């Protein structure tokens, strides 16, 4: 069993939206047709995106942190959006665990978006079908691309390598190791959806300094400054030099 997924490292995401724009660029240019994008330079722009980067402030001033939070379909292992679909247009692929929408079967009833607690499905206002992240399924298996480019567009675009991609069911994969070793977690675990995408938490690098490290243990009298120069005949501190 393979379960392809993204692992997003919130510790290094800088919120640059490169994943958003590269996602839109790739997915609006594919065989499935364009992603709607209305009034992009007018007062009320709107459009269909598979990926959003949001920003949250954690804590109260002055003790705050800014968390940039990329959000796309989590390709849940128990996707609540799939069983509710009346036509079978929403499905989870057995071979790689990607949750997809068959745009030719979708009737645009929006029920799947009601059934997704994460709000990652967006109705295309022009094609009137539900759309969502495909994990760039039209890229990752494309043998015409060099092998290192067979990754989702967002992963290739990320300048800080905050987005890792791989099979989370393979314990030796980069993503599994990252989840295991860096405390990867899932969003809204309370609903039992078992998202395949994981997030790596913000990690502060803290130097632990103990009290005895601030005080020289070999200076019990706390006399600082130059030590008196021993006479030529006297033994030196290291028994080698007298100067």
């Amino acid at each position, binding site marked *: 069993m393979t379960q392809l997924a993204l692992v997003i490292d919130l510790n290094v995401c800088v919120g640059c939206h490169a994943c958003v724009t590269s996602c839109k660029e790739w997915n609006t240019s594919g065989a499935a047709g364009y992603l709607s994008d209305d009034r992009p330079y007018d007062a009320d722009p709107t459009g269909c995106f598979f990926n959003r*980067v949001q920003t949250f402030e954690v804590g109260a001033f002055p003790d705050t942190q800014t968390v940039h939070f990329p959000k796309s379909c989590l390709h849940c292992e128990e996707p609540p959006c799939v069983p509710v679909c009346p036509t079978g247009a929403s499905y989870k692929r057995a071979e790689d665990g990607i949750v997809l929408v068959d745009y030719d079967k979708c009737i645009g009833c929006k029920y799947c978006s009601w059934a997704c607690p994460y709000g990652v499905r967006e109705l295309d206002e022009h094609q009137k079908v539900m759309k969502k992240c495909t994990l760039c399924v039209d890229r990752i298996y494309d043998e015409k691309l060099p092998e290192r480019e067979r990754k989702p567009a967002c992963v290739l675009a990320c300048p800080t390598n905050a987005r890792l991609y791989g099979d989370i069911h393979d314990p030796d994969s980069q993503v599994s190791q990252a989840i295991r070793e860096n405390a990867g977690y899932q969003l809204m675990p309370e609903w039992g959806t078992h998202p395949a995408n994981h997030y790596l938490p913000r990690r502060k690098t803290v130097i632990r300094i103990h009290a005895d490290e601030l005080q020289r243990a070999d200076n019990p009298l706390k006399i600082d400054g130059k030590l008196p120069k021993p006479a030529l005949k006297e033994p030196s501190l290291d028994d080698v030099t007298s100067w």
Partner: protein
Amino acid sequence: MNPAFSVIFLTTLIGAGQGLFLALYTGQVYALFDLLPAQDSRSFYAVGSAIALAFLAAGLVASFFHLGHPERAWRSAAMWRTSWLSREVIVLPAFMGTVFLYGAGHWLGWQSPLFSLPGGYPVDATLLLGAAGTLLCFGLFICTAMIYACLKFLREWHTPLTVINYILLGGASGFVLATAFSAAAAPAASGFFGGWAAVLTLGALTSRGASLVRNTRLKPRSTLATAIGVRHPRIVQKSQGFMGGSFNTREFFHGRSKAFLGGVKWGFLVLAFPVPLLVLAAGLAAGSPAILGGAFLVQYLGLMAERWFFFAQANHPQNLYYQAIS
């Protein structure tokens, strides 16, 4: 959620149609056991079935306005094993077909007894069709309500009360309609239907009131802390990632003030329950089909407000991600 009028019309119209059919069949069963005077099969049962069918058809038409691709609606019968919406799509036409046959049987006089119950009560084809229709009718109530009740993170909906409410509200609406119809077509039975309409309306008030009380006590299970996975009580969204609106900001929030929501709530609590009961009593006392029709209309307006509130009150956890533009 942002209430869609197509779904409000669908659920209220088919509810009234289902209730009217149940009322007709209840009348027939009572008449079978000589508890009610028998009614004319053409002018009462056949015409009544036609009215019920008209409500069901109107609801079906309304539902198409909810779809992005109505021409593909036939596909939605495919996933009945997992999807309550798919089940509804199958049960609604099956129920409509049965109501049609029930009405046609009465119109064409399929009344030769097929067999007799102990005690010598004759069972004809319309009685069997009505029994099948009753099963399908309750099946349809359950399918419609479970579409909402099965979504576990929409906690305002995820309760057995949702199913009970749909059954009782639809039943009340249909029985009030049956009272108005019988006042014109079968005055001897209108008191019977009016009594049951009052009972169902009071029952619906009780169960809907219970769900309102339940919903005010709900505490959200998802918070920003679980939504982004940062364990901190104070998290504020600073940007949702885009400056304009999107599907997510339009579909999942009604965009009205709390006061407006409260107004709709008290509006439906008044319009759907006490006012129709009073008008019903006045109409029965006067024996006036017009006043009883007014009771149905007032209650229908109240039920539309009830359905609007039902959708608007449901707070989708995805809204946690869409709280601030920038």
